[in-house]
């Protein structure tokens, strides 16, 4: 290796690097035939927290559990209204919507060959209630209207569930992973059910009745699912044999994987959509979703001004909604009128869907001046107290919105800081110390019912809600929420939500920004995909052509 080679190699490397980095986006797209046709590959961020349906609450875990386990009822394609039979063939409810009876599907087998019977159903529900989801607390979805002696086995294939109190939306609860059925024999063989402790084995392994079973899970690398041969739904028609969910936290990795065909689906942040939009072979299809974007305001913060309704109204006027939509979410977001997202039942009770607040600094100034919070001599209101804005590290959209909101507040004469924190620190600040003023937050549906939104947002801590710990409380609103929760009469529920809206909209505990459209860029050779906000991924439906 004489000196010429070393010199040339080194110069070559340098020139190549510099030339490449200055040559801008030279298209190098070549016609790519379908890559690994019998496998679906999904490049996403994060890693499932657990594969145990009784303890899973994060989307990453859901991506796997939805296709391995099954519930009594299920959804079809994008339809979130009607419930389709799954492990239960048909069901009936008593007119006081207290007792629900399910007839179970016969000769269904788990992936390890064990038979599926009513015993497994009772075992699964009781297990959720006894374990009480030590890690994630997801059990509240069932424990809000069930207890361990709710489920009764009538015979091998019939189950009767008596709720602790009547709940109209009960069926929707069974659609979420917490209501999915595990194999009693397998769980008993691996540590069974122990109160308040998670089952280590069930966290890393899975035996379900669903179309796929777990091949292997290498943490923070990939989850691989393979065909479950004795799936009761059968394998005729077009399906894929293998599903690979790869973890790639770097956006560049996911973008390139999609462009060169390695990835069939990829989670791409909004600001990078332009890298994949319009590329041949890539579909960027937005779907309306119930994922809402909010700014929560702490009414009991040591910055006492936030306790005043006028201040929070002014803040709602100061927020540049259009810029958030155009610049943070690149147009893939629509305005959110109130707690209930547009598209969910009863959303029309919120000023029939028309947002009350808009970006209007003049109005904001007027409200603050009328309320007596005028600017002092060097132009700052609230005698220069600092309003602290927080968001969780790594979220590009929230970073854009908080910096832009900071600039609006400075315009308005309010001093503010933007601090980014990792999830644990932020949650600790939000709940334990409530030492915060403004936080950019979001919320996704657990089940397709307005109660899953309005209760946690504006319900007070007294009725076990106020999930964001804003400290906001209004008796009438509480009353209305409870009334709407436990009635099945449409009219009654609509009036309750209407009254609650008229109260909280003028004393807003949070700024309702918008409802972002869900986008999952994918290769054009993927068929059978449809977006269902309450159940994002069902690999059984997809195939490649």
């Amino acid at each position, binding site marked *: 290796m004489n000196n010429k080679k070393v010199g040339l190699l080194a110069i070559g490397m340098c020139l190549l690097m510099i030339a490449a*980095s200055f040559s801008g986006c030279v298209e190098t797209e070549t016609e790519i035939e379908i890559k690994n046709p019998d496998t679906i590959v999904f490049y996403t961020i994060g890693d499932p927290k657990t594969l145990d349906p009784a303890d899973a609450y994060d989307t990453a875990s859901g991506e796997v559990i939805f296709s391995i386990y099954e519930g009594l009822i299920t959804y079809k394609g994008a339809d979130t209204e009607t419930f389709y039979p799954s492990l239960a063939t048909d069901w009936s409810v008593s007119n006081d919507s207290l007792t629900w009876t399910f007839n179970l599907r016969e000769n269904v087998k788990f992936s390890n060959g064990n038979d599926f019977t009513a015993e497994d159903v009772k075992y699964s529900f009781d297990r959720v209630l006894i374990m009480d989801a030590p890690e994630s607390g997801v059990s509240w979805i069932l424990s809000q209207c069930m207890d361990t002696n709710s489920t009764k086995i009538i015979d091998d294939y019939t189950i009767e569930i008596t709720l602790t109190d009547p709940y109209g939306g009960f069926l929707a609860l069974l659609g979420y992973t917490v209501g999915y059925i595990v194999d009693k024999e397998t769980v008993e063989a691996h540590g069974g059910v122990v109160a308040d402790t998670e089952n280590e084995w069930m966290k890393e392994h899975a035996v379900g009745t669903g179309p796929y079973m777990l091949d292997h899970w290498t943490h923070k690398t990939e989850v691989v699912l393979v065909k479950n041969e004795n799936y009761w739904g059968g394998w005729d028609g077009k399906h894929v044999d293998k599903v690979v969910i790869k973890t790639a936290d770097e956006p560049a990795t996911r973008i390139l994987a999609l462009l060169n065909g390695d990835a069939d689906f990829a989670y791409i942040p909004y600001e990078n959509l332009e890298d994949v939009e319009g590329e041949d072979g890539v579909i960027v299809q937005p779907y309306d979703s119930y994922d809402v974007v909010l700014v929560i305001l702490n009414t009991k913060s040591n910055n006492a001004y936030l306790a005043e309704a006028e201040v929070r109204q002014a803040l709602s006027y100061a927020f540049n909604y259009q810029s958030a939509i155009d610049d943070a979410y690149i147009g893939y977001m629509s305005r959110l009128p109130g707690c209930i997202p547009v598209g969910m039942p009863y959303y029309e009770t919120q000023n029939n869907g028309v947002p009350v607040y808009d970006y209007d600094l003049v109005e904001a100034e007027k409200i603050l001046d009328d309320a007596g919070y005028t600017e002092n001599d060097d132009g700052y209101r609230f005698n220069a107290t600092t309003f602290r804005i927080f968001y969780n590290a*790594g979220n590009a959209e929230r970073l854009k919105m908080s910096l832009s909101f900071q600039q609006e507040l400075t315009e308005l004469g309010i001093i*503010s*800081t933007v601090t980014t*924190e990792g999830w644990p620190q932020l949650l600790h600040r939000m709940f334990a110390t409530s030492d915060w003023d403004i936080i950019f937050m979001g919320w996704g549906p657990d089940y397709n019912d307005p109660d899953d939104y309005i209760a946690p947002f504006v319900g007070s801590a007294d009725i076990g809600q106020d999930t964001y710990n804003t400290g906001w409380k209004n008796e009438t609103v509480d009353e209305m929420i409870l009334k709407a929760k436990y009635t099945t009469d449409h009219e009654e529920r609509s009036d309750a939500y209407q009254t609650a809206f008229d109260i909280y909209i003028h004393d807003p505990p949070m700024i309702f920004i918008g409802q972002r459209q869900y986008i999952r860029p994918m290769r054009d050779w993927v068929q059978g995909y449809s977006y269902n906000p309450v159940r994002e991924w069902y690999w059984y439906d997809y195939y490649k052509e």
Partner: protein
Amino acid sequence: MLHLFRHSLLSMIGLALILLVVFIAIFAPLLIQEHPSYVEVSTDQGTTRVEERWDINFENKLLPPGPEHYFGTDDFGRDIYSMVVWGTQISLKLCLMVVLTATIIGVILGGVAGYFGGKIDEIIMRVTDVFLAIPYLILAMAVAAALGRSIENIMMALIVVWWPQYARLLRGQVLSIRENQYVEAARSVGASGWRILFRHILPNSFSPLLVQITLDLGAVLLVAAGLSFIGLGASPGTAEWGLMISMGRTHMFHAWWYVTFPGLAILITVLGFNLLGDGIRDITDPKLRR
């Protein structure tokens, strides 16, 4: 001495780069097009801190380099050229502060350990062993994460990580110089330990120290940029090079300039320090002069 310095071409380049960077840092306010505004903010601990703000206008988001934006703009529409130039001040301030503080701590502890020896030496050396048992970036990462996200905390973290190196360097120097006759002579004349340490030993260990300081200025900058890159650095609005690269990396495919220019700025500054450090070492270390 100086004619040797002129000889080595590389160290001349180094000196030129450093002078360029210092020049930019000093005249930054005149060179930049967009100016940051400063707002005094009260922090959680009740103190006040001045925060840097750059105006956001999303209209000219991600414009390629052109006449009105030499280095193009970032995804907030801020002028990258101005931020990179302004960033020189932050970076230089950071690495100078860290290296000087670390040197002072290191010199005192190293000097004491080396000169007085015995128990103190043992303790100090064991403590430096512990610190040096963990690679720089990882220890700095843990400390910065503990203190929270800000430039000041990165500075603290880097000081904590960097002083042991100087302590060890100084101790070595002190041990070797202590044996020389002129130190014996000074002691025989009744000079106190501290006097000897500062009058005789430190001036003589100055040249290896100078070399180490110059090289470390570059190394500190690299580690600081690394910390900001992971997300432990400055708060999102500030013009800090590591942070800019971190924020720019997602736009690499449609905005190559967002990542390239801050990276070049780091490269040029650190290169300057390294070349300069090498030049000084070549001069002061006779063995290498051949």
